[in-house]
C-alpha cells in the first residue's frame, strides 16, 4: 500500500530533530505538525511573521490578527514571538531555519524544484518558496509520486519554471523516500509498504540509485 497524505506527513516528521526551527509549507506539509514526536521540541516558523506557531484555535479563540502563511487562523504559544516580514525572511535567508518541508509540482534528479507556476494556466506566485529553498539549511519535499493523470513528477529536468536550482535534499512521495545529493543525483532509500522497486521505476523518469 502506498502511503496516504497523513502517512507521508508522518514520515516527513521523522526528519525533525530536537531544537529545530521549522517551516512547513501549505498542503501535506502542514499535516507534519500532527506527527511531531513527543520527545522532541521544535519551533514552527510562519513566514508572515511568527515564531512558535500553535494549533488551530477553538471557535471562541479565533483572532483575525493571528494567521499562518496559508491564511488559516491559528494560536500562539508561550514561546511565541511576532515580527515583520523583513525580519521573518531575514531568518529564512540568513540560514537560521533548520528545515523547510514543502510541496512540489516537479523535482529533478539534481534537486531542482518547481512548485510555483504553470505557464498560461495557473498563476499563483511563489510566495515565500524561493526564499525558503535558497536560505533554509535543509529542504524536504513531500508530494505525490505522479500527477493525477499519472505523469511522473520526478524528472531528469523540470519542465515547469523553477523555484530553485539544486535546492532539494530529500523527496518523500506516496511510494517511498529519496535522498538527493544536490547537483549530483538521487537515491531511493525507503519504500512504502508493499511497494516494489519496479513500481517506483515505472512511475519515475528521473535516474536514481538504490540503497535500501
Amino acid at each position: 500500500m502506498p502511503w496516504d497524505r497523513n502517512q507521508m506527513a508522518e514520515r516527513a516528521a521523522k526528519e525533525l530533530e530536537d531544537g529545530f526551527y521549522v517551516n512547513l509549507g501549505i498542503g501535506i506539509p502542514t499535516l507534519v505538525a500532527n506527527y511531531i514526536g513527543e520527545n522532541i521540541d521544535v519551533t514552527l516558523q510562519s513566514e508572515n511573521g511568527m515564531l512558535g506557531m500553535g494549533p488551530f484555535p477553538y471557535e471562541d479563540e479565533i483572532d483575525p490578527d493571528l494567521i499562518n502563511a496559508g491564511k488559516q487562523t491559528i494560536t500562539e504559544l508561550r514561546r511565541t514571538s511576532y515580527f515583520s516580514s523583513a525580519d521573518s525572511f531575514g531568518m529564512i535567508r540568513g540560514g537560521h531555519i533548520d528545515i523547510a518541508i514543502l510541496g512540489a509540482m516537479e523535482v529533478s534528479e539534481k534537486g531542482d524544484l518547481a512548485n510555483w507556476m504553470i505557464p498560461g494556466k495557473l498563476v499563483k506566485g511563489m510566495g515565500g518558496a524561493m526564499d525558503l529553498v535558497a536560505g533554509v539549511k535543509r529542504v524536504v519535499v513531500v508530494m505525490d509520486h505522479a500527477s493525477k493523470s499519472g505523469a511522473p513528477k520526478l524528472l531528469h529536468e523540470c519542465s515547469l519554471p523553477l523555484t530553485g536550482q539544486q535546492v532539494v535534499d530529500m523527496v518523500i512521495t506516496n511510494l517511498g523516500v529519496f535522498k538527493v545529493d544536490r547537483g549530483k543525483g538521487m537515491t531511493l532509500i525507503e519504500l512504502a509498504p508493499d511497494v516494489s522497486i519496479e513500481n517506483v521505476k515505472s512511475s519515475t523518469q528521473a535516474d536514481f540509485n538504490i540503497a535500501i
Partner: protein
Amino acid sequence: MQKIYPDAAATLEGLLFDGMTIMAGGFGLCGIPENLILALRDSGVKNLTVISNNAGVDDFGLGLLLKTRQIKKMVSSYVGENKEFERQYLSGELELEFNPQGTLAERCRAGGAGIPGFYTRTGVGTQIAEGKEHKEFNGEIYILETGLVADLSIVKAWKGDEQGNLIYRKTARNFNPMMATAGKVTVAEVEEIVPLGSFDPDNIHTPGIFVQRLIKGEHEKRIEQRTVRQRENA
C-alpha cells in the same frame, strides 16, 4: 504639525494622481488598510501600480480596486486567492511583477532605508534572475535586487498616537513596518488613537517619523481561512 485626520477621504486629499505607485501593507486580508483602500476606490484614481504581497479577494481588500480596473500593475508574491486577478492577468489586462516574498519585503526595507540595491541568493537559476546582475561572494552566486519606494504607502496598525508612532498586533504586522518607511508619504489607519505618552517608547514598532498622516478606521477584519479545532467532550 497635525497628523491626525478626520476620515480616510480627508487623509488622502492632495496625495493622489493617476499613474502613481502605492504600497499597501498586509498579508492576505490580515493587517490590510481596509479604510484607505475603500477611499482609494471612491477617489477614482487610476492607472495605479500597487506593491502589495497579495491582491485581496474578489470583494475585499485590493480586490475592490481590481474590480474597478483602477490598478494597471501589481507587484506581489502570491495572488492565488483572487479569481478576478487571475482573469485580468491571463487576458493581458493587468501587468504583474512577481517578487519572491522575502525579496519583496527586503526591497521595501531597503527602499525606505535609502539602500538602492542588495544581493540575494533567492531566485538564482529561476525566471526571477533573468536580466539581473549576478555576482559571486565566497563561492556562491547572488543576484542584484533593487530597493523600492512609493509615491504613497498605506498601512494598518493596531494603535497610533498623535506623533504617528505605531504598534502592530500579532501577525497583522507583516509588511506594514517596511512599507511605512518606503512611502514618500505614508498614511496609517489604526484601530485606536491613544494619548501621547501611552506607549512604552521601548515598544514602538514604527517611529512617527515615517508616518505623515493618521486616521482611526473601522475594521471588518475579514478572515480568509477560518480553521478551528473541536473541544473534546468532557
